[in-house]
Protein backbone atom coordinates (compact mmCIF):
# COMPACT_ATOMS: atom_id res chain seq x y z
CA UNK A 1 0.00 0.00 0.00
CA UNK A 2 1.04 3.51 -0.66
CA UNK A 3 1.15 4.47 2.99
CA UNK A 4 4.10 2.21 3.52
CA UNK A 5 6.37 4.69 1.91
CA UNK A 6 5.82 7.04 4.79
CA UNK A 7 6.20 4.19 7.27
CA UNK A 8 9.63 3.20 5.99
CA UNK A 9 12.65 4.12 8.02
CA UNK A 10 16.41 4.06 7.61
CA UNK A 11 17.29 0.34 7.24
CA UNK A 12 20.57 0.87 9.10
CA UNK A 13 18.76 2.20 12.14
CA UNK A 14 15.57 0.14 12.02
CA UNK A 15 15.55 -2.75 14.52
CA UNK A 16 14.26 -5.92 12.90
CA UNK A 17 12.91 -7.10 16.24
CA UNK A 18 10.97 -3.89 16.87
CA UNK A 19 9.78 -3.28 13.30
CA UNK A 20 6.36 -4.36 12.04
CA UNK A 21 6.09 -6.84 9.19
CA UNK A 22 5.24 -3.97 6.82
CA UNK A 23 8.20 -1.90 7.93
CA UNK A 24 10.55 -4.86 7.45
CA UNK A 25 9.35 -5.52 3.91
CA UNK A 26 9.49 -1.91 2.79
CA UNK A 27 12.91 -1.25 4.34
CA UNK A 28 14.39 -4.55 3.16
CA UNK A 29 13.41 -4.21 -0.51
CA UNK A 30 14.78 -1.67 -2.94
CA UNK A 31 13.20 1.72 -2.16
CA UNK A 32 9.72 2.05 -3.64
CA UNK A 33 9.81 -1.39 -5.26
CA UNK A 34 7.32 -3.26 -3.07
CA UNK A 35 3.88 -4.07 -4.52
CA UNK A 36 1.50 -5.91 -2.23
CA UNK A 37 -0.85 -8.72 -3.27
CA UNK A 38 -4.22 -8.77 -1.47
CA UNK A 39 -3.45 -5.49 0.32
CA UNK A 40 -5.42 -4.41 3.42
CA UNK A 41 -7.89 -2.46 1.26
CA UNK A 42 -9.21 -5.81 0.01
CA UNK A 43 -10.07 -6.79 3.59
CA UNK A 44 -9.33 -10.47 3.18
CA UNK A 45 -9.82 -11.21 6.85
CA UNK A 46 -10.27 -14.38 8.83
CA UNK A 47 -13.80 -15.76 8.58
CA UNK A 48 -13.24 -17.67 11.83
CA UNK A 49 -11.94 -15.25 14.47
CA UNK A 50 -15.33 -13.52 15.04
CA UNK A 51 -16.67 -16.84 16.35
CA UNK A 52 -14.14 -16.50 19.15
CA UNK A 53 -14.90 -12.80 19.72
CA UNK A 54 -11.40 -11.95 18.58
CA UNK A 55 -10.41 -8.93 16.49
CA UNK A 56 -9.27 -9.47 12.92
CA UNK A 57 -6.53 -7.85 10.88
CA UNK A 58 -7.04 -6.51 7.36
CA UNK A 59 -4.11 -8.61 6.11
CA UNK A 60 -4.65 -11.56 8.51
CA UNK A 61 -1.18 -11.01 9.88
CA UNK A 62 0.90 -11.57 6.75
CA UNK A 63 2.11 -9.21 4.04
CA UNK A 64 2.84 -10.77 0.62
CA UNK A 65 3.94 -9.24 -2.64
CA UNK A 66 6.73 -8.61 -5.09
CA UNK A 67 9.69 -6.28 -4.98
CA UNK A 68 13.23 -5.99 -6.20
CA UNK A 69 16.39 -6.65 -4.23
CA UNK A 70 19.50 -5.10 -5.70
CA UNK A 71 17.50 -4.81 -8.91
CA UNK A 72 16.49 -8.47 -9.10
CA UNK A 73 12.81 -9.42 -8.88
CA UNK A 74 11.83 -11.28 -5.72
CA UNK A 75 8.65 -12.45 -4.07
CA UNK A 76 8.39 -11.71 -0.39
CA UNK A 77 6.20 -12.64 2.58
CA UNK A 78 6.36 -11.23 6.10
CA UNK A 79 4.47 -12.43 9.15
CA UNK A 80 3.31 -9.97 11.78
CA UNK A 81 4.32 -11.53 15.09
CA UNK A 82 2.26 -9.14 17.14
CA UNK A 83 -1.07 -10.15 15.58
CA UNK A 84 -2.18 -13.50 17.07
CA UNK A 85 1.49 -14.37 17.58
CA UNK A 86 2.03 -14.45 13.81
CA UNK A 87 0.22 -17.76 13.77
CA UNK A 88 -0.99 -19.59 10.67
CA UNK A 89 -4.74 -19.28 10.12
CA UNK A 90 -6.65 -20.15 6.97
CA UNK A 91 -6.20 -16.86 5.09
CA UNK A 92 -2.72 -16.20 6.47
CA UNK A 93 -1.49 -19.61 5.34
CA UNK A 94 -3.22 -19.46 1.96
CA UNK A 95 -1.52 -16.14 1.15
CA UNK A 96 1.89 -17.75 1.66
CA UNK A 97 0.89 -20.84 -0.32
CA UNK A 98 -0.38 -18.67 -3.18
CA UNK A 99 2.83 -16.64 -3.21
CA UNK A 100 4.97 -19.76 -3.47
CA UNK A 101 2.80 -21.20 -6.23
CA UNK A 102 3.07 -17.90 -8.08
CA UNK A 103 6.86 -18.19 -7.90
CA UNK A 104 6.71 -21.23 -10.18
CA UNK A 105 5.18 -19.04 -12.90
CA UNK A 106 7.06 -15.82 -12.28
CA UNK A 107 10.47 -17.42 -11.64
CA UNK A 108 11.80 -14.61 -9.43
CA UNK A 109 15.46 -14.52 -8.35
CA UNK A 110 14.31 -15.74 -4.91
CA UNK A 111 11.40 -16.00 -2.49
CA UNK A 112 12.00 -14.41 0.91
CA UNK A 113 9.98 -15.50 3.95
CA UNK A 114 10.25 -13.20 6.95
CA UNK A 115 9.15 -15.57 9.71
CA UNK A 116 7.59 -14.29 12.92
CA UNK A 117 5.29 -17.01 14.19
CA UNK A 118 4.24 -19.13 17.12
CA UNK A 119 2.99 -21.83 14.72
CA UNK A 120 -0.62 -22.83 14.16
CA UNK A 121 -3.45 -20.44 15.13
CA UNK A 122 -5.47 -22.66 17.45
CA UNK A 123 -8.79 -21.01 16.59
CA UNK A 124 -8.21 -22.23 13.00
CA UNK A 125 -5.97 -25.16 13.87
CA UNK A 126 -6.89 -27.60 11.12
CA UNK A 127 -6.69 -24.96 8.40
CA UNK A 128 -3.38 -23.67 9.76
CA UNK A 129 -1.84 -27.12 10.04
CA UNK A 130 -2.90 -28.04 6.51
CA UNK A 131 -1.60 -24.73 5.16
CA UNK A 132 1.79 -25.46 6.75
CA UNK A 133 1.89 -28.80 4.93
CA UNK A 134 0.90 -27.08 1.67
CA UNK A 135 3.58 -24.45 2.23
CA UNK A 136 6.28 -27.08 2.69
CA UNK A 137 5.26 -28.87 -0.48
CA UNK A 138 5.20 -25.58 -2.38
CA UNK A 139 8.66 -24.61 -1.08
CA UNK A 140 10.06 -27.91 -2.28
CA UNK A 141 8.49 -27.33 -5.71
CA UNK A 142 9.99 -23.83 -5.88
CA UNK A 143 13.42 -25.02 -4.77
CA UNK A 144 13.35 -27.89 -7.26
CA UNK A 145 12.68 -25.31 -9.97
CA UNK A 146 15.98 -23.69 -9.05
CA UNK A 147 14.54 -20.73 -7.13
CA UNK A 148 16.11 -20.16 -3.70
CA UNK A 149 13.70 -19.81 -0.76
CA UNK A 150 15.36 -17.80 1.98
CA UNK A 151 14.03 -17.55 5.54
CA UNK A 152 14.80 -14.53 7.73
CA UNK A 153 14.20 -14.98 11.47
CA UNK A 154 14.54 -12.28 14.08
CA UNK A 155 11.06 -11.23 15.20
CA UNK A 156 9.51 -11.17 18.62
CA UNK A 157 7.40 -14.30 18.07
CA UNK A 158 10.43 -16.30 16.89
CA UNK A 159 9.78 -19.26 14.59
CA UNK A 160 7.95 -22.01 16.44
CA UNK A 161 5.81 -25.05 15.80
CA UNK A 162 5.03 -25.63 12.16
CA UNK A 163 6.94 -22.43 11.42
CA UNK A 164 10.09 -24.24 12.53
CA UNK A 165 9.35 -27.06 10.10
CA UNK A 166 8.79 -24.61 7.25
CA UNK A 167 12.08 -22.92 8.13
CA UNK A 168 13.82 -26.29 7.93
CA UNK A 169 12.43 -26.67 4.41
CA UNK A 170 13.97 -23.42 3.13
CA UNK A 171 17.19 -23.28 1.08
CA UNK A 172 18.94 -20.99 3.55
CA UNK A 173 18.18 -19.23 6.84
CA UNK A 174 19.44 -16.00 8.35
CA UNK A 175 18.88 -15.42 12.04
CA UNK A 176 19.61 -12.72 14.57
CA UNK A 177 20.24 -12.98 18.27
CA UNK A 178 16.53 -12.42 18.90
CA UNK A 179 15.45 -15.11 16.45
CA UNK A 180 14.44 -18.40 18.02
CA UNK A 181 13.79 -21.57 16.03
CA UNK A 182 12.11 -24.53 17.65
CA UNK A 183 9.20 -26.93 17.26
CA UNK A 184 7.87 -27.15 20.82
CA UNK A 185 7.94 -23.81 22.58
CA UNK A 186 9.29 -23.50 26.13
CA UNK A 187 5.81 -23.18 27.63
CA UNK A 188 4.56 -26.17 25.65
CA UNK A 189 7.38 -28.39 26.89
CA UNK A 190 6.92 -27.21 30.46
CA UNK A 191 3.14 -27.69 30.36
CA UNK A 192 3.46 -31.22 29.01
CA UNK A 193 6.64 -32.47 30.66
CA UNK A 194 7.16 -30.30 33.73
CA UNK A 195 9.52 -27.53 34.78
CA UNK A 196 12.29 -30.08 35.50
CA UNK A 197 12.39 -30.82 31.75
CA UNK A 198 12.20 -27.19 30.68
CA UNK A 199 11.78 -24.15 32.90
CA UNK A 200 10.15 -21.68 30.52
CA UNK A 201 10.79 -18.78 32.93
CA UNK A 202 14.54 -19.34 32.58
CA UNK A 203 14.95 -16.97 29.64
CA UNK A 204 18.70 -17.58 29.38
CA UNK A 205 17.96 -21.29 28.92
CA UNK A 206 15.43 -20.47 26.20
CA UNK A 207 17.95 -18.35 24.28
CA UNK A 208 20.73 -20.91 24.69
CA UNK A 209 18.59 -23.82 23.50
CA UNK A 210 16.56 -22.21 20.73
CA UNK A 211 18.19 -18.87 20.03
CA UNK A 212 19.94 -17.61 16.94
CA UNK A 213 23.45 -18.16 18.22
CA UNK A 214 22.93 -21.84 18.97
CA UNK A 215 21.26 -22.42 15.64
CA UNK A 216 24.04 -20.64 13.78
CA UNK A 217 26.86 -22.48 15.58
CA UNK A 218 25.31 -25.89 14.92
CA UNK A 219 24.46 -25.17 11.28
CA UNK A 220 20.73 -24.79 11.91
CA UNK A 221 21.04 -21.35 10.29
CA UNK A 222 23.42 -20.13 7.59
CA UNK A 223 23.96 -16.51 8.56
CA UNK A 224 23.91 -14.46 11.75
CA UNK A 225 22.79 -10.84 11.56
CA UNK A 226 22.88 -7.83 13.79
CA UNK A 227 19.36 -6.70 14.65
CA UNK A 228 18.93 -4.25 11.78
CA UNK A 229 17.00 -4.43 8.52
CA UNK A 230 20.14 -3.65 6.53
CA UNK A 231 21.99 -6.59 8.12
CA UNK A 232 19.18 -8.93 7.10
CA UNK A 233 19.21 -7.42 3.61
CA UNK A 234 22.92 -8.10 3.21
CA UNK A 235 22.46 -11.64 4.55
CA UNK A 236 19.57 -12.30 2.15
CA UNK A 237 21.61 -11.15 -0.83
CA UNK A 238 24.54 -13.32 0.23
CA UNK A 239 22.39 -16.41 0.85
CA UNK A 240 20.51 -16.09 -2.45
CA UNK A 241 23.87 -16.37 -4.19
CA UNK A 242 24.78 -19.66 -2.54
CA UNK A 243 21.57 -21.64 -2.13
CA UNK A 244 21.85 -25.44 -2.26
CA UNK A 245 19.87 -27.32 -4.87
CA UNK A 246 16.99 -29.57 -3.88
CA UNK A 247 17.88 -33.12 -4.84
CA UNK A 248 18.84 -36.52 -3.48
CA UNK A 249 22.46 -35.48 -3.05
CA UNK A 250 21.53 -32.53 -0.84
CA UNK A 251 19.16 -34.59 1.29
CA UNK A 252 21.66 -37.40 1.72
CA UNK A 253 24.19 -34.80 2.85
CA UNK A 254 21.62 -33.43 5.29
CA UNK A 255 20.91 -36.93 6.55
CA UNK A 256 24.62 -37.42 7.24
CA UNK A 257 24.93 -33.95 8.80
CA UNK A 258 22.02 -34.47 11.21
CA UNK A 259 23.05 -38.04 12.09
CA UNK A 260 26.54 -36.77 12.90
CA UNK A 261 25.06 -34.03 15.06
CA UNK A 262 22.96 -36.49 17.08
CA UNK A 263 25.91 -38.87 17.45
CA UNK A 264 28.24 -36.13 18.57
CA UNK A 265 25.97 -34.06 20.81
CA UNK A 266 23.15 -36.46 21.69
CA UNK A 267 24.30 -36.75 25.30
CA UNK A 268 24.73 -33.01 25.86
CA UNK A 269 22.47 -31.53 28.51
CA UNK A 270 23.02 -27.87 27.70
CA UNK A 271 23.92 -25.79 24.68
CA UNK A 272 27.19 -24.75 26.34
CA UNK A 273 28.23 -28.43 26.30
CA UNK A 274 27.52 -28.51 22.56
CA UNK A 275 29.50 -25.32 21.96
CA UNK A 276 32.46 -26.63 23.94
CA UNK A 277 32.54 -29.78 21.82
CA UNK A 278 32.32 -27.64 18.70
CA UNK A 279 35.63 -26.13 19.76
CA UNK A 280 34.42 -22.86 21.26
CA UNK A 281 36.98 -21.99 23.91
CA UNK A 282 34.83 -20.13 26.40
CA UNK A 283 31.30 -21.32 25.71
CA UNK A 284 29.96 -19.42 28.72
CA UNK A 285 30.84 -16.15 26.99
CA UNK A 286 28.81 -16.86 23.83
CA UNK A 287 25.48 -15.38 24.99
CA UNK A 288 27.11 -12.03 25.76
CA UNK A 289 29.23 -11.81 22.58
CA UNK A 290 28.54 -8.93 20.22
CA UNK A 291 27.94 -9.65 16.55
CA UNK A 292 31.56 -9.23 15.47
CA UNK A 293 32.96 -11.43 18.21
CA UNK A 294 30.32 -14.05 17.56
CA UNK A 295 30.97 -13.97 13.80
CA UNK A 296 34.66 -14.57 14.49
CA UNK A 297 33.75 -17.51 16.72
CA UNK A 298 31.46 -19.01 14.07
CA UNK A 299 34.26 -18.77 11.51
CA UNK A 300 36.25 -21.29 13.55
CA UNK A 301 33.39 -23.84 13.75
CA UNK A 302 33.41 -26.29 10.87
CA UNK A 303 29.82 -27.49 11.40
CA UNK A 304 28.34 -24.01 10.97
CA UNK A 305 28.62 -23.84 7.18
CA UNK A 306 27.35 -26.48 4.79
CA UNK A 307 25.21 -27.08 1.71
CA UNK A 308 23.21 -29.84 3.40
CA UNK A 309 19.72 -28.35 3.75
Amino acid sequence: MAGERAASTDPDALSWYEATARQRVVALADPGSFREFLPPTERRMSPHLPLFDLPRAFDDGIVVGRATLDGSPILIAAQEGRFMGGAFGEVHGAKLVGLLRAALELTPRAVLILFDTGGVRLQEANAGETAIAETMRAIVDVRAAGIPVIGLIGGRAGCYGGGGLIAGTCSRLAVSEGGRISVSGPEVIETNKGAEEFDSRDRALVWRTMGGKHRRLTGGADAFCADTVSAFRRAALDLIGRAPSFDLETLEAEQARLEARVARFGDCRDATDVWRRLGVNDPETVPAMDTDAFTATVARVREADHDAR
Partner: protein
Amino acid sequence: MESLTFRHTTKKPLAGSLPNAITGVVASGNLEILLERVLPPDACEVAIETPIAGYGDVWEAVVADFVARAQPGGLRISINDGGARPDTVSLRLLQGARLMEV
Protein backbone atom coordinates in the same frame (compact mmCIF):
# COMPACT_ATOMS: atom_id res chain seq x y z
CA MET B 1 -17.31 -8.03 18.86
CA GLU B 2 -18.99 -4.65 18.69
CA SER B 3 -19.29 -2.63 15.47
CA LEU B 4 -19.53 1.15 15.58
CA THR B 5 -19.79 3.63 12.73
CA PHE B 6 -19.54 7.42 12.97
CA ARG B 7 -20.20 9.80 10.07
CA HIS B 8 -19.05 13.39 10.05
CA THR B 9 -19.11 16.38 7.74
CA THR B 10 -15.85 18.26 7.48
CA LYS B 11 -15.13 21.85 6.52
CA LYS B 12 -12.44 20.83 4.05
CA PRO B 13 -10.84 17.80 2.42
CA LEU B 14 -7.69 16.29 3.88
CA ALA B 15 -4.57 17.57 2.08
CA GLY B 16 -2.54 15.26 -0.14
CA SER B 17 -3.44 12.69 -2.78
CA LEU B 18 -2.30 9.35 -1.35
CA PRO B 19 -5.19 6.93 -2.02
CA ASN B 20 -4.76 4.85 1.12
CA ALA B 21 -2.54 4.04 4.08
CA ILE B 22 -2.43 1.72 7.04
CA THR B 23 -0.86 2.18 10.44
CA GLY B 24 -0.65 0.17 13.65
CA VAL B 25 -1.01 -3.51 14.40
CA VAL B 26 -3.90 -5.42 15.95
CA ALA B 27 -2.46 -6.51 19.27
CA SER B 28 -3.39 -6.25 22.90
CA GLY B 29 -3.78 -2.55 23.73
CA ASN B 30 -3.12 -1.56 20.14
CA LEU B 31 -5.10 -1.19 16.92
CA GLU B 32 -4.74 -0.89 13.17
CA ILE B 33 -6.21 1.93 11.16
CA LEU B 34 -6.87 1.75 7.43
CA LEU B 35 -7.47 5.07 5.72
CA GLU B 36 -8.96 5.28 2.21
CA ARG B 37 -9.64 8.44 0.20
CA VAL B 38 -12.94 7.27 -1.27
CA LEU B 39 -15.61 9.65 0.08
CA PRO B 40 -16.83 13.08 -1.04
CA PRO B 41 -14.33 15.77 0.05
CA ASP B 42 -16.53 17.00 2.90
CA ALA B 43 -17.34 13.58 4.34
CA CYS B 44 -15.54 11.33 6.80
CA GLU B 45 -16.64 7.96 8.06
CA VAL B 46 -15.02 5.99 10.86
CA ALA B 47 -15.97 2.31 11.29
CA ILE B 48 -14.69 0.42 14.31
CA GLU B 49 -14.62 -3.27 15.21
CA THR B 50 -13.75 -3.78 18.86
CA PRO B 51 -13.76 -6.81 21.17
CA ILE B 52 -14.51 -4.56 24.15
CA ALA B 53 -18.20 -3.70 24.17
CA GLY B 54 -19.88 -0.80 25.90
CA TYR B 55 -17.53 2.08 25.15
CA GLY B 56 -19.47 3.62 22.26
CA ASP B 57 -19.59 7.06 23.86
CA VAL B 58 -15.84 7.11 24.43
CA TRP B 59 -15.21 6.17 20.79
CA GLU B 60 -17.69 8.81 19.68
CA ALA B 61 -15.84 11.50 21.62
CA VAL B 62 -12.39 10.42 20.42
CA VAL B 63 -13.53 10.33 16.79
CA ALA B 64 -15.30 13.71 17.05
CA ASP B 65 -12.18 15.27 18.52
CA PHE B 66 -10.01 13.78 15.75
CA VAL B 67 -12.34 15.00 13.01
CA ALA B 68 -12.39 18.50 14.48
CA ARG B 69 -8.58 18.63 14.66
CA ALA B 70 -7.58 16.89 11.41
CA GLN B 71 -10.52 17.80 9.12
CA PRO B 72 -10.10 14.44 7.33
CA GLY B 73 -12.56 15.16 4.50
CA GLY B 74 -12.80 12.39 1.91
CA LEU B 75 -11.58 9.61 4.17
CA ARG B 76 -13.18 6.33 5.05
CA ILE B 77 -11.35 5.14 8.14
CA SER B 78 -11.62 1.52 9.27
CA ILE B 79 -10.33 0.40 12.65
CA ASN B 80 -9.57 -3.07 13.93
CA ASP B 81 -9.21 -2.57 17.65
CA GLY B 82 -7.27 -4.81 19.99
CA GLY B 83 -8.39 -2.98 23.11
CA ALA B 84 -6.47 0.28 22.73
CA ARG B 85 -6.79 3.11 25.26
CA PRO B 86 -8.41 6.34 24.01
CA ASP B 87 -5.08 8.22 23.96
CA THR B 88 -3.55 5.49 21.78
CA VAL B 89 -6.52 5.70 19.43
CA SER B 90 -6.15 9.48 19.13
CA LEU B 91 -2.44 9.22 18.46
CA ARG B 92 -2.89 6.55 15.78
CA LEU B 93 -5.70 8.47 14.05
CA LEU B 94 -3.52 11.56 13.80
CA GLN B 95 -0.57 9.45 12.59
CA GLY B 96 -2.79 7.92 9.94
CA ALA B 97 -4.04 11.30 8.75
CA ARG B 98 -0.44 12.57 8.49
CA LEU B 99 0.46 9.53 6.34
CA MET B 100 -2.30 10.51 3.92
CA GLU B 101 -1.17 14.14 3.64
CA VAL B 102 1.35 13.44 0.87
